[in-house]
């Protein structure tokens, strides 16, 4: 029997899980930015429900693993290290804005790259560059300064069992109920599938790093899916391969691209795409820079904080996700209205008291609707 090193097992598992992530995302259109834009421009809530279902599954699965003693979430970066609320808010907002400029978050960018989109190749390179600059390079002093000013102590754990159970029931149960109560969502098999599978990949990632990497003498870092810093890590890995160690994050990045490629090839959807001109290039460059630096500042991206971080019940993750969403909404409205000022006015108008319909769906004000 072949005895594999934990690092090899973790790398292989992360690649396989990443491939599932990439394939499912490609096949179903799972996309955080897409979910927000569907709501803003079409009043279509299915992809957002898929995302929320994924969060519910991620939360329940992760807390289940922790409660059963399989993983110690206190060892994760979300609970085991000091956090920065300023980083979560500013970085989250930057990331959210950036994803609307780049046509998708880090995960979606990898999926698009797997499908042959060369614009996404540029986004990956620039995002990775800015992520590394924020981690260890030119932007690191600014990040460290903000973290010092807005530091909060490490939470250490998700909380006592009773509190965890209440939060999983309220947040997870509430999100699952909200998603599944909608008939259009229940009938949409791709959205249902993506919510369930993407959500399950988060605890699967924790299990891969936490159980397979459970070496009592040299435990592997406990982690799950995240893409901002790992995209930077992937570039670094490619450049320093002869002396580098493959991490969960880097293997997951590679797997995501591979899975998306395989799914696109299966459906004959592979096609090379390039920029339409200078404005398109500039928009993507700006988005990539914001995502790379913002994602590191926020300690994670839509997946890294939004799903993985929140699955640990980290208080700062619960701050980062709304910041990412706020940045995304602002970015989408800016694309529509042409300026940040007009975007803010439109957002304030559309969140007025007459906007919500009895079924919970948000209807735009007259004159600002999505119908033609």
């Amino acid at each position, binding site marked *: 029997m072949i005895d594999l090193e934990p690092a090899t097992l973790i790398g292989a598992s992360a690649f396989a899980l990443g491939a599932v992530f990439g394939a499912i995302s490609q096949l179903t*259109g799972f*996309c955080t*930015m*897409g979910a927000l*834009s*569907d709501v*803003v*421009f*079409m*009043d*279509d809530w*299915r992809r957002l429900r898929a995302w929320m279902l994924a969060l519910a599954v991620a939360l329940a699965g992760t807390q289940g693993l922790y409660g059963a003693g399989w993983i110690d979430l206190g060892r994760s970066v979300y609970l085991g290290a000091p956090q920065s609320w300023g980083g979560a808010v500013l970085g989250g907002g930057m990331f959210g804005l950036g994803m*609307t400029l780049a*046509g*998708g978050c880090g995960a979606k960018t990898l999926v*698009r790259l797997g*499908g042959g*989109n060369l*614009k996404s190749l540029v986004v990956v390179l620039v995002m990775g560059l800015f992520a590394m600059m924020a981690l260890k390079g030119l932007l690191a002093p600014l990040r460290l300064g903000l973290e010092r000013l807005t530091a909060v102590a490490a939470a250490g754990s998700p909380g006592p069992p009773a509190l965890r159970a209440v939060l999983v029931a309220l947040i997870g149960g509430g999100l699952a109920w909200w998603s599944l109560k909608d008939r259009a969502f229940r009938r949409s098999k791709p959205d249902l599938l993506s919510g369930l599978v993407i959500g399950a990949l988060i605890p699967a990632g924790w299990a891969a790093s936490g159980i397979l990497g459970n070496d009592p003498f040299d435990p592997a870092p406990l982690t799950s899916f995240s893409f901002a810093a790992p995209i930077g890590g992937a570039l670094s890995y490619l450049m320093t391969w002869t002396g580098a160690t493959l991490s969960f994050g880097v293997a997951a990045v590679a797997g995501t691209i591979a899975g998306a490629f395989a799914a*696109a090839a299966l459906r004959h*959807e592979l*096609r090379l*795409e*390039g*920029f*339409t001109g200078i404005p*398109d290039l500039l928009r993507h460059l700006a988005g990539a820079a914001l995502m790379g630096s913002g994602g590191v500042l926020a300690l994670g991206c839509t997946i890294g904080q939004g799903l993985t971080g929140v699955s640990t019940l980290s208080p700062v993750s619960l701050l980062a996700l709304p910041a990412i969403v706020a940045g995304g909404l602002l970015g*989408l409205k800016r*694309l*529509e209205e042409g300026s940040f000022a007009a975007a803010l006015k439109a957002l304030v108008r559309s969140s007025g008291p007459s906007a919500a319909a009895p079924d919970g769906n948000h209807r735009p004000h007259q004159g600002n609707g*999505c*119908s*033609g």
Partner: protein
Amino acid sequence: MSETKLDVTGLNCPLPILHARKFMQRISAGTVVEIRASDPASVKDFDAFCRKTNSDLLDHREEEGVFTFNIRKGS
């Protein structure tokens, strides 16, 4: 570009739908619009767009990576 044609090739989500929405706001109900897109996600997106805007997706085809949608604007 004519009143009844929109070309969003080269653009990725969310721009095709955003441009389609603005374009459709300028035309009258019953008008048939031809929209060309290259984003593979546009097939699903324009299907949802038509349902949500009470428009009719008359037909769509793909040729060499370009998707063409003929949509009649709803009332």
